[in-house]
């Protein structure tokens, strides 16, 4: 069925609130979900994978380890609800130190990593996101690498393979060797060693030429996504989605509406 971009903007935040998130989180994560649907046709899937919660608040992410440039964050599922916050953390750390490395553990949710890359690159940073889906989603998502340059226009993506570890080792400062080791799997390519982990390397513009998000690595990436064109197309033409998926979304969103009661009708005016 045909669905308009404006329709999604209106419906998705309500649906996310009914997954148990606050008003603020719903708006933040609606951007991630809508972006993912417009660019990768995978936004509805993000919502479908999230279970409905009756809890008024989900747990906020927890910082497990932090030495300034390197941060380990534990995230309760679903990741899309925290994508904006994690991207902003990456931006803020890279703004302070020139480069930042964030390891996200919990639920990988690789489908939302392109949005994280986009949000960071839109703010004027370069970013490489390497993720390995948890066992639950391994078959579907596998290992994903996403790279984006400053500007938020293009996202490069590869699934099931990744950049050679050599490239990471050559490009990153030596102090990152442990993280590189962690990111490299036995086959000599960079993924993330542990299931359900994401490694986010964010780089301030002036340092980009020294880092792995250069042409040598990108040449192996299989998918070049023109974000601007994809978003523009979705806005102008709308989207075609299976009607049963849209029905789940609108059904979820409708739950925000309060049942009628005696005084209800008089409370509008």
């Amino acid at each position, binding site marked *: 069925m045909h669905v*308009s971009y404006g329709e999604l903007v209106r419906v998705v935040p309500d649906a996310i609130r009914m997954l148990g998130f606050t008003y603020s989180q719903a*708006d933040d994560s609606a951007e991630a979900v809508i972006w993912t649907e417009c660019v990768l046709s995978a936004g509805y899937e993000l919502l479908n994978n999230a279970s409905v919660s009756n809890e008024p608040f989900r747990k*906020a992410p927890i910082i497990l380890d932090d030495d300034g440039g390197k941060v380990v964050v534990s995230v309760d599922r679903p990741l899309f609800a925290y994508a904006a916050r994690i991207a902003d953390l990456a931006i803020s750390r890279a703004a302070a130190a020139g480069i930042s490395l964030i390891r996200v553990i919990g639920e990988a949710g690789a489908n939302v990593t392109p949005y994280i890359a986009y949000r960071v690159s839109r703010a004027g940073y370069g970013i490489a996101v390497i993720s390995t889906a948890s066992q639950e989603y391994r078959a579907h998502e596998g290992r994903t690498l996403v790279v984006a340059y400053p500007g938020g226009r293009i996202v490069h993506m590869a699934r099931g393979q990744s950049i050679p570890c050599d490239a990471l080792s050559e490009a990153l400062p030596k102090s990152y060797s442990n993280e590189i080791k962690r990111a490299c799997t036995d086959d000599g390519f960079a993924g993330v060693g542990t299931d359900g982990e994401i490694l986010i390397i964010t780089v301030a513009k002036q340092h980009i030429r020294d880092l792995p998000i250069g042409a040598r690595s990108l040449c192996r990436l299989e998918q070049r996504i023109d974000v601007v064109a994809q978003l523009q197309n979705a806005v102008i033409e*709308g989207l075609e989605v299976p009607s049963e998926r849209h029905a789940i979304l609108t059904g979820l969103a409708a739950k925000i*509406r309060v*049942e009628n009661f005696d005084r*209800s*009708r008089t409370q*509008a*005016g």
Partner: protein
Amino acid sequence: MNPGSKQILRSDGLPIPPYLSQGWFDTHGISDVDLVLANLRSESCVMRPARLRAIKATPLSFARSLVKRMIAEKWRIERRLIDIDRDGVGKLIYRIFAAGRDFTFVVFSRRSDGTEHPGRIFESNFDLLAALFEGDVDDSRIEHEQQQLDGRLWQGRTDNSCLGWTLANRSVRFFNHIVEHLTQGRQPDKEFLKSGGGYIIRNAGWYGNGRFGSRSWKALGPRHPFSYPYHLDIFPLYLWRTVGFDIVETMARLRNPGAAAVLSAHTKAWMGIGNSSGIGMVAALVRWPAWMSAYNFPRELALAIILSQRGPVDTGAAESLCRLLRRAIDYYAEQPDSLIKGVERASVIKSGLEQVAMNAERMLGELSVGRSPKFGYWRAVTDFADMLGTVELSEQVNALLIQAHPEISDAMLDLFQQAMKVERTLDPTMDVAELRSIIARRYRWALEIDQLASGARKYFWYRSEENGENRRGERVIDPGEERESFVDVVGSIHALSADLARQNSNVAVAEFLLRHPEMSHAVSRVQLAAGFPYTEIRGNIIDANFLPMDGIRFLLSTMGLESSHPNSNQWVRGTFLQGAPLPEAIKQGIGDDWALPSLETQHS
């Protein structure tokens, strides 16, 4: 002072938005920038609910700027088909030609059951339903749309060629009165018409921008005739007004062929389109603080520029103001008094306008013999109006002052478009200390509100299962609090402030929000308020004493509603486009000076 800098603050902390540059002032020949900025009214004045309630439509209002564009581009609205019976049941099709594009407006006119329908969103019984398409549409498409819109109201679907659906109802008393009189070959009774709101048809909503699968407004390119904010929402109102005239005249002709009258052009021009709005408008105002700023800043800047004029007075503008004041007096003389507490009576405003007009005319006479008020003519006019002590009078005079300076209001239209492009952003690199400092500077008014006071948290806003209609419940009585819509700015600022107090000053906002993701909206509002003025209603929206009509009337005036008559403190009726030129004038490019018409008096 460099007004292009985001960091510019006036002594009272009012920020100047970054889209206002020194170049803008240079382009418009305004040299005394400091004086203009000093003359901007404070937020504690403008953003008080009681002031917002009183603000009137100006040439910057969306209905006015739409009609201005229609006239400038000589839009053509042509009726292609009217196929209705004696009761007005049937179909009408209009073709619209605007700025090189064409549109089709298809109307399905249902049988009226003879009762007044308030037009609430939960209803299914509407007298008129219509769809606006880009381009031409064939019969099969019209039939399909009728099935979806008329046959499956609230459940139907449309597609990208459709810009939106719209609903309306007959104002039964006035509709029937006019049909009966025209059928008898007579014009309707003027006194009877004046006793109502001045309309035949009452708008019951525009459902576009993606609703039911219609095209998103963002999809329209910058040169599109409806690219200006809200013009697409307002245009159907203009079309409904035209549809109303066509239906009553055709019904009369079918009932009395050869002897029925048509409405006089003056009566038609005087009539507008009715509108009713409820509390959802307040939620919309709160949701988009950047738009709130956009609704206010260009108007306030226009006023500040006018009040900052030094040197010889533009007597042409002064004469124009005096003429507009006289017109407004006649307009208010025909407006019914409101019985709602807090709404100033039309007769009181009229009386004040008479005094302001006499004073303005006297000073104009003195100008001709070389005497001029010490602080300028315009300031003398507004000071005199303020002295009379009615807020609505002051705001009506301010609106007329802007109308008397078309070159200044025209300059604001471009600025307004820039203001409306400001989007919600969040700077994750800002530290907690700076955020605290902005709150202390910009939200002291909110922190001073005692949330524990009796009634301070009485209400919550929610959407009903009845098609999502916005409603307001009482926390201690009504269900649904856990699903409340966000309107509690004061509460969110208090909560944010309390959370920030527990943070180290050098913590980045990004890290704070990672731990407190529920605060991102509040942080975003605060950061916006650092660089933009007039972003917040300075009141506690959920307080027992907050009157939703204050926000409703403000937003309706911003849209272009000329007269508003609250039915209660949370439901406002009024009339759009009263006096707007008819399609015949618009296609000739004439009729721009139309606001505040009188049924009895034809003003030049």
